[in-house]
């Protein structure tokens, strides 16, 4: 009897380990899960998103805004004849640092920008509820003066300082806030503000793995206006709706927006068109990435 017991116990001790137990043996090592692809593109529509291309990646981006829907739309072939364009090229020096250059046709503006990721949203071994970025751009308006006054070159400059706070709530829903300060060195009349504050709000909802709906709104916080034949007229807040479509190395973004300008200070603070009046522009962004420097690969062990 005792012997039998012994054999049974020996037997069980040998085969007690099932595959599940073996799997348990491995356990779950704590890892930091960073939120990735909070947005598909580096821009939502006009706003910079919390995305930065990976280190060593160069991105070429074409942004297009056609003429407005209330301006002889068919005569202008759906506004295509009045298209505005920005060409941009950026490069990621590090996974957290991206720099770029661009040229926008509206007001012939050149821009240079820097975007830096300071915090990365993560869960697991390290919890960080949001991603936090700094974005800054310097813009040079190269349009000829037509007032026969001697202007200093510095009057052509304007600056954008922005903090981006983004959170990917789940696989499909992301939201971000972008408190923004635009500074103009030069404004046309002395009572117009040089510093214009606004709060950007952007979101996206994924429809499928490759298609997402986006929206962004720039809430103006400064009394910001211009004069139309001597009448003080407030600028409108920019509101845009879009669709992102991703195919391999490209992201196509189609949208409708009331802001036609493409350089930062233009669309952020100089949007005269209102949705109510039909000042709606069809537009698209297309980006293409080029991997200039390949990331480190994992080498096979030698044995």
């Amino acid at each position, binding site marked *: 009897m005792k012997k039998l017991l012994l054999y049974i116990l020996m037997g069980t*001790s040998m085969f007690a*380990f099932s595959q599940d137990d073996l*799997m348990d043996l*491995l356990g779950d090592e704590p890892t930091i899960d960073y939120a990735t692809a909070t947005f598909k593109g580096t821009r939502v529509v006009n706003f910079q998103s919390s995305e930065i291309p*990976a280190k060593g990646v160069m991105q070429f981006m074409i942004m297009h805004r056609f003429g407005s829907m209330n301006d002889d739309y068919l005569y202008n072939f759906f506004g295509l004849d009045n298209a505005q364009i920005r060409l941009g090229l950026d490069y990621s020096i590090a996974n957290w640092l991206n720099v770029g250059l661009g040229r926008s046709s509206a007001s012939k503006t050149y821009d240079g920008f820097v975007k830096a990721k300071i915090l990365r949203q993560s869960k697991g071994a390290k919890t960080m509820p949001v991603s936090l970025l700094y974005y800054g751009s310097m813009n040079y308006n190269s349009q000829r003066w037509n007032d026969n006054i001697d202007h200093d070159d510095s009057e052509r400059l304007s600056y954008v300082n922005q903090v981006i706070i983004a959170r990917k709530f789940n696989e499909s829903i992301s939201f971000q806030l972008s408190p923004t300060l635009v500074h103009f060195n030069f404004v046309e009349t002395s009572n117009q503000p040089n510093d214009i504050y606004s709060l950007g709000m952007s979101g996206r909802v994924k429809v499928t793995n*490759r298609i997402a709906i986006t929206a962004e709104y720039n809430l103006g916080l400064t009394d910001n206006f211009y004069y139309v034949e001597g009448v003080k007229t407030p600028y409108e807040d920019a509101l845009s709706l879009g669709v992102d479509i991703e195919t391999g190395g490209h992201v196509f973004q189609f949208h409708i927006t009331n802001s036609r300008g493409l350089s930062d200070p233009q669309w952020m603070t100089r949007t005269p068109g209102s949705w109510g009046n039909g000042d709606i522009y069809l537009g698209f962004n297309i980006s293409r990435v080029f991997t200039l420097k390949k*990331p480190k*690969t*994992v080498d096979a062990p030698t*044995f």
Partner: protein
Amino acid sequence: MKKFILLVVGMMAFQGIQAQKYITRSGYIKFYSSTPVEDIEAASNQASSVLDVDSKQLVFQVLMNSFQFEKALMQEHFNENYVESEKYPKGTFTGNFTSNEDISNEGQHPIVVKGKLNIHGVDHMVSQTMTLTKKAGEYFLQGKVVVSPAMFKINIPSAVQDKIGKDIEVTIKAKYQQR
């Protein structure tokens, strides 16, 4: 006497758990897809595995987001669109193996590994000949398996169909240490 039996039984049970299991946390897994348009390769050296040489069982697990690609965007698409790493973070294998040779001897032994591969939340049975080598008390496992995205209900959109192979070669290399 009773105490003695208990002690023996206890020791044996303990041995059964302790002695014959080999483990790694730095297993290497590579997959390779080749088409006329593009070759895609990705590898991870963070696979963990247990090899039980007594019961001839083998398990593997790897975090899908530990695979490194040569293009960052590919890696993002792999995790976001294809294997859906947020929903299905791990790839696992649970199975056993047989061998005509005594694998406790030093040297190379062909083994037949059979079991359940789980990727993208979908199980698929695989059976494959691999090589198990014992050298200086350590075990080395090497092998290749061919899988396809369709096996694991991974949908490849038509726009990129000519870039992603229907057959994907998976290479496994692991060096085990006694636990």
